[in-house]
């Protein structure tokens, strides 16, 4: 016992006599122990101990183990003072390679009983010296079978050992590494293995071997549980492994750049997406600062990002610009998340950068086109549209040079608007066109690299001086007709694609449409302006004509009339009645002619003068006119009745005043000789209008003549009876029409007339 140095074994020795070691003195009774173990050294010590006991008590031992175990165990036994070769020579010690031994009786994965006994019986016969001494045997063939997951074979082999135990005094120790039983699928086998043994010894790490069956069962349960949890852990690990492989594949093959960095901004990992977007290979960039990717003018972004990461914050969809290895820029959307260890401490960051160049470009294009459309719809001048179109094209194409050239009246393409082109360049290339003047629906011409272009030497030189390296000629056409060209220039060779030029084509279409619409509009406007000018001229001539009439035409008439009056005054006494009568006729005709001229002037002035409409108090205006009339013509003896509160109208006061005066004159003039003129004025609402009625007790107008009444120089009554120029009512109607109203008459031709003038009401109904 003093050679037992394992505390566990000591413990087992002192507290437990049902263990393998406690059966040293068990005579005649066969035992079959099973030892589960976790560490090799434990097993080796344990087996050495077990075997040594046999030698101590003069018994024999059989060791069937792996060569490694055999040599280790023998070494340990030797240190106990036993000579293995000596014992072997005297037939007290037998050792076999477990694997080799196993192969002797295994038939296609199943141990064969006959073969097994054939191998083992002779050994045991010798070891027991013809059943005269006990044998301690250690075998790990079952363990090898379990390691190969051949549990059925192991259990069967255990059973075969048990059979042997019945005929030999053997203490048999089996050992299984615990790792072979991690998993629910082997729990049944574990059970059966335990069942096959008379004593189960737990692993070195389990509690001390139980004293009672109950506690033993408990220990087994604990072992089972341990086995199960190990199994679960393995499953989880496998899942995690699978998961990890999946994640790493996702990261590796992602379109997005997925980068990790530490809290100093040093890049720690770099996927294929990152290589694609930024151009650096993983080995070139890992270990370098993330600042390598940040343009000079955005370097200040990083401290802020790192500060937020340290606080454990996440940065979502931060749109910014990063620099590629070749120095070009790329629009990216960044999502940066802190990486935390188990304790929750942030130790770095994962960074997902999505290349949003295309999206940005699409957005820019959309925005540029929208702006252009609103300019085209709102712009008053073509140059504003050109300007907007150039802006839009530069933004869509990502360049700073563009131009619009249009055919002038001589059929020469001339620069109308441009961006970043020198006067020298414009002068040198103006007039050049890749298409014929009358080309129908010409196609764009793209020159990816100016060096390959087929231009004249003169053009080539001008282009080279301007440092242009690529250009596209986009025809500006309307209904297939060539109007000019839209130029897009690049400072570096540029591969033009139809897809890329799509937005530019849309812009060109807009420009063409705007130009054409503007041209049509300008033509129309010019036509309107010309007509307006000629109308104005006609009106001005008319004014001059009227002015002449009023000054010059009246002068001789007035002179005739005045001289006749002078003659009458100065020489009236010397003339007979006939002569005087003729003179009166002359005077009368002069007066009449003068009035005619004045009426015509009034009428024409009314037709052409610009009038502004205002609300007018018809009540006040009418009363003023009536009072004035009565003051000026007291001899008429007319009785004029104006109703209370005439409704206000919208009109032009001077014109309306003229019209009302004429109606009043008219009403009083055409009265039968010995009748007192009676005039009644009132207003009446007619929907949105107000109608002013002027009713008289005059001679009336027969309905069949009424339609002629308002024409110039129309007279319905013989002149000798009723003096007038025949223009008065024409003036009334013209005035009403100019004010957006109308005039008319109702009469049966017997009982007087009812004249009216109707104008928009000043007050809503």
């Amino acid at each position, binding site marked *: 016992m003093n050679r037992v140095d394992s505390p566990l074994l000591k413990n087992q020795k002192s507290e437990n006599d049902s263990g393998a070691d406690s059966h040293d003195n068990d005579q005649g009774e066969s035992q079959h122990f099973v030892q589960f173990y976790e560490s090799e050294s434990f097993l080796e010590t344990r087996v050495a101990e077990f075997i040594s006991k046999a030698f101590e008590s003069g018994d024999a031992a059989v060791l069937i183990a792996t060569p490694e175990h055999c040599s280790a165990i023998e070494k340990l036994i030797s240190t106990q003072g036993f000579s293995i070769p000596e014992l072997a020579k005297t037939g007290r010690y037998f050792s076999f390679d477990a694997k080799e031994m196993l192969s002797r009786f295994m038939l296609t994965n199943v141990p064969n009983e006959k073969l097994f006994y054939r191998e083992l019986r002779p050994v045991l016969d010798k070891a027991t010296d013809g059943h005269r001494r006990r044998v301690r045997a250690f075998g790990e063939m079952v363990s090898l079978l379990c390691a190969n997951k051949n549990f059925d074979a192991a259990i069967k082999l255990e059973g075969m050992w048990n059979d042997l135990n019945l005929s030999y005094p053997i203490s048999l120790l089996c050992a299984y590494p615990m790792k072979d039983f991690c998993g629910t699928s082997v729990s049944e086998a574990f059970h059966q293995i335990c069942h096959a043994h008379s004593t189960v010894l737990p692993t070195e790490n389990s509690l001390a071997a139980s004293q009672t069956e109950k506690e033993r069962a408990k220990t087994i349960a604990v072992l089972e549980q341990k086995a199960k949890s190990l199994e679960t852990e393995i499953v989880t690990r496998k899942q995690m492994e699978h998961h990890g492989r999946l994640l790493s594949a996702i990261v590796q093959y992602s379109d997005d750049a997925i980068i990790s960095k530490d809290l100093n901004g040093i890049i720690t990992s770099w996927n294929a997406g990152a290589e694609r977007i930024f151009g650096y290979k993983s080995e070139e960039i890992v270990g370098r600062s993330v600042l390598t990717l940040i343009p000079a003018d955005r370097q200040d972004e990083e401290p802020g990002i790192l500060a937020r990461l340290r606080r454990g914050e996440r940065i979502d969809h931060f749109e910014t610009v990063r620099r590629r290895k070749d120095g070009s820029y790329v629009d990216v959307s960044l999502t940066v998340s802190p990486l935390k260890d188990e304790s929750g401490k942030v130790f770095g960051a994962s960074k997902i950068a999505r290349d949003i160049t295309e999206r940005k470009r699409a957005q820019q294009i959309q925005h540029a086109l929208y702006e252009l459309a609103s300019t085209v719809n709102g712009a008053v001048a073509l140059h504003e549209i050109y300007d907007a179109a150039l802006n839009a094209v530069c933004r869509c194409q990502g360049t700073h040079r563009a131009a619009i050239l249009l055919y002038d009246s001589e059929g020469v393409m001339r620069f109308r608007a441009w961006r970043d082109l020198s006067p020298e360049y414009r002068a040198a290339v103006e007039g050049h066109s890749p298409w014929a003047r009358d080309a129908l629906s010409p196609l764009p011409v793209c020159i990816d690299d100016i060096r390959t272009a087929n231009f004249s030497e003169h053009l080539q030189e001008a282009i080279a001086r301007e440092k242009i390296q690529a250009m596209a000629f986009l025809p500006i056409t309307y209904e297939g007709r060539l109007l000019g060209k839209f130029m897009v220039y690049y400072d570096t060779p540029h591969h033009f694609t139809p897809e890329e030029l799509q937005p530019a084509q849309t812009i060109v279409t807009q420009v063409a449409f705007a130009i054409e619409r503007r041209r049509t509009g300008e033509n129309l406007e010019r036509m309107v302006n010309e007509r307006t000018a000629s109308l104005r001229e006609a009106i001005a001539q008319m004014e001059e004509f009227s002015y002449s009439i009023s*000054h010059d035409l009246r002068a001789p008439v*007035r002179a005739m009339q005045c001289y006749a009056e002078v003659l009458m005054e100065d020489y009236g006494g010397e003339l007979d009645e006939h002569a005087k009568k003729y003179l009166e006729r002359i005077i009368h005709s002069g007066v009449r002619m003068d009035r005619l001229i004045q009426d015509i002037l009034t009428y024409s002035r009314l037709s052409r003068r610009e009038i502004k409409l205002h609300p007018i108090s018809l009540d006040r205006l009418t009363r003023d006119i009536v009072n004035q009339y009565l003051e000026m013509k007291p001899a008429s003896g007319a009785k004029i009745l104006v109703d209370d509160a005439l409704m206000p109208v919208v009109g032009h006061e001077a014109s309306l005043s003229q019209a009302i005066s004429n109606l009043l004159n008219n009403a009083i003039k055409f009265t039968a000789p010995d009748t007192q003129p009676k005039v009644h004025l009132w207003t009446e609402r007619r929907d949105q209008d107000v109608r002013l009625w002027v009713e008289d007790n005059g001679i009336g107008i027969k309905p069949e003549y009424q339609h002629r009444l308002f024409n110039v120089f129309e007279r319905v009554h013989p002149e000798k009876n009723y003096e007038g120029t025949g223009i008065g009512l024409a003036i009334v109607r013209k005035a009403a029409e100019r004010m957006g109203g109308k005039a008319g008459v109702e009469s049966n031709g017997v009982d007087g007339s009812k004249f009216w003038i109707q104008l928009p009401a000043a007050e809503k109904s």
Partner: protein
Amino acid sequence: MINPKPVILLAEDDDNDVFFMRRALQKSQIDFLLQVVTDGQQATDYLSGHGDFSNREKHPLPTVILLDLKMPFLDGFEVLTWIRAQAAFKATPVAVLTSSAEERDRRRARELGACAYFVKPPKPETIQEIGRLIQEPQQRAVN
């Protein structure tokens, strides 16, 4: 030597109208001296004493000026504008005598500083108003 009679300067190119004005004035109670020029240019020459008009005994400065509107060379409005710009005639009443009854002529005459606007032929009221202008030359009322 100052002529005691009020001097009326009439700028009028039509002989008939000169006759009617002279006749109308003669029929009135006004004691006057009528000086006639037949165009706008002559009117300004008379007033500024150019050439023959430098003789103020023969061509005395007017108490009242009557201007026709339609005249050769300078029209009535131009003469009126010129007169109103001369400090010497600041106080001299100017009346327009025209065959035009048009409102725009009437308004323009008033804007340019005419004291009165008469439509030909001269009526008794016209002469009466001229008499008033002679007596109260400061009066700037416009009809």
